[in-house]
């Protein structure tokens, strides 16, 4: 049974909400429909890393706000 997380809509939402460089976002979205499940899984792994970076960035900015003199 196909993993629902890996369907076009979910991955597209994930890509578009990560605030990527427009060229990169465009590349990822363009090739998304042609990816098989294994490739989608690889894409999601990469997107997770970017997502974690986004989270870290938010925490970093929060840290600046809290510790700025």
């Amino acid at each position: 049974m196909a993993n629902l997380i890996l369907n076009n809509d979910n991955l597209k939402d994930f890509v578009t909400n990560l605030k990527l460089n427009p060229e990169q976002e465009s590349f990822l979205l363009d090739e998304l429909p042609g990816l098989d499940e294994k490739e989608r899984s690889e894409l999601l792994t990469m997107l997770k890393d970017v997502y974690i970076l986004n989270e870290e960035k938010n925490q970093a900015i929060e840290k600046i706000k809290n510790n700025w003199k």
Partner: protein
Amino acid sequence: MPANPESNPISKTEARDIEIAPFQEQENEAVENITEGYFEATKIDSKSITIVDNFLVANTEEVYKKFALKWFENNEEKMKGDGRVIPSDASDEWKINMVLSSREKGGMAATAEINNPEYREMREEMDKIGILRADMKKDHVPPETPFLLLNYLQTGVEAERQEIAKLRVEGEKGNESAAIVADSKEKKLRELYLVRKELAEKTMNEDLTQNAEKLVEIELPPKEVCVQGWLAQGNSEVEARKVRELMDAEWQKYMSLPENQRIKYQKKIEQKLEVSRSEFDRQTRNEKYTPEEKEEARGKYNRELFYKGMLELTEKNGIVSDAVWGLLEQGYKPHEAKIKRSWMFGKKKIIIPKQDGSFETVPVKELSGFLKSFEESYNISIESQAKEELEVGWDQLHDEKVTAQVEKRIEGLAKSPEMAEGGVEKIYQKAKEKIVAEYIKKRVEKNPKTKEQLRVIEKRFKEKGEKRDINGFMSDVLFKKGRLVNLGEELDDNSRKEIRGFLRDWGIKTPVAVTKNISKLEYANAIKRQTGLFGLIMEIIEEAFKPKAVKKGLKRKSKPK
């Protein structure tokens, strides 16, 4: 996985635990450090870490001292009530020691009470310092840390500068230890300046010195022009100092003689060079001197009398002005010169003794010519010394102005949370781009033809001694700002320079006269192919690498050195 991860954030742990596919094992341990390798820009030099850490440790001690004094103030009455003896004139140092030292040593061991609400401000300060120290020592310094450090250090630096100014005033009043402490603090500030500069340069990705020099060029004329303009003033300053040095040297020699020899010397040269104590007493009988002041005043008086006497002696022999200093500078004693008449023809000649015991005999008629060479060499030596000093002065002024500009830039960054947040955004954005670029490169490499092209390019990078790796370069070309046709319009100066330089070296003209223009349609088509725009660029670069005879359209330049 939420549909909108930005608006509905999940924790890092949750993100790591998402099940991706039943056939793929997740390498969770790799995720822990996945982001750390992307922040090269925030690596801090180990020497700098030590300098900053020492500064922070010193600040920690200051916070503890502040806490101790506050604690003492809050608990003084209670301690007295408990029978503790507190001297009425207890110094701050005594109080601090008493509050912080252990009970075994007779102290109150109150350090832990810094956690009480009334000392919250100090506790928070300690926390800030603690976070900075811990983050700074991590293998991968968090991107926000350099910004926070700059901000924290700025306050400390300003406080130190004020402290140094106070100490300097004390030093000028004769407090030697204050002057020594000020020197030591200044040295530390200088070290800290270099660290702050390093942090600011890394976070802003700019060469602060180079940019400051450009600004200084506007307000400070070039060295040669300045030195020429200052020369007249410089000459007179150097000359005044030189004359004083030459005269002082003669004075020291004269004063090193025993008193009876000095009296004898005065008689021999028939010139009064000093007054005795009793004579000075008579002259100054109405002055109210202490014995020390009187001796000092007599010393000054005699010194001036000696100088006056020396010049009167040289003048008697027709040796004046710069010739006197020129002769003294070259080891002559013009004040001891004597005019004698030749026994044979009655011609006058002047005998000028030298410091080494020899002497020069010059016919009086030729004296003027003889002295001229000494005047000239003296003036040349003055001018060359003045020039040298003025050049050093210009260098110092230039350095001061550059440092002031750099400081201004650092201060601007250190006081702007907006710049810090923007800087952190930029660093993370770059890291994100790098992750995606690596992913795309892997996808592209799956095409064997493109993989071979990449290998060729990588080889070219190595041959050319490129310090950057190909991933970074390709990422800049392909994904950082967009299409080849737009190079030169959208990229920042450095990226444009690097990319254009590289491409130009290999015969690819960019951006205005790019041989291979990419139309919108071509771009759209390329991006739809699996190799996408990357493949298109590969084709262009490969074309550039082809041997001359085979190539069409693109002329390859000679191999760059």
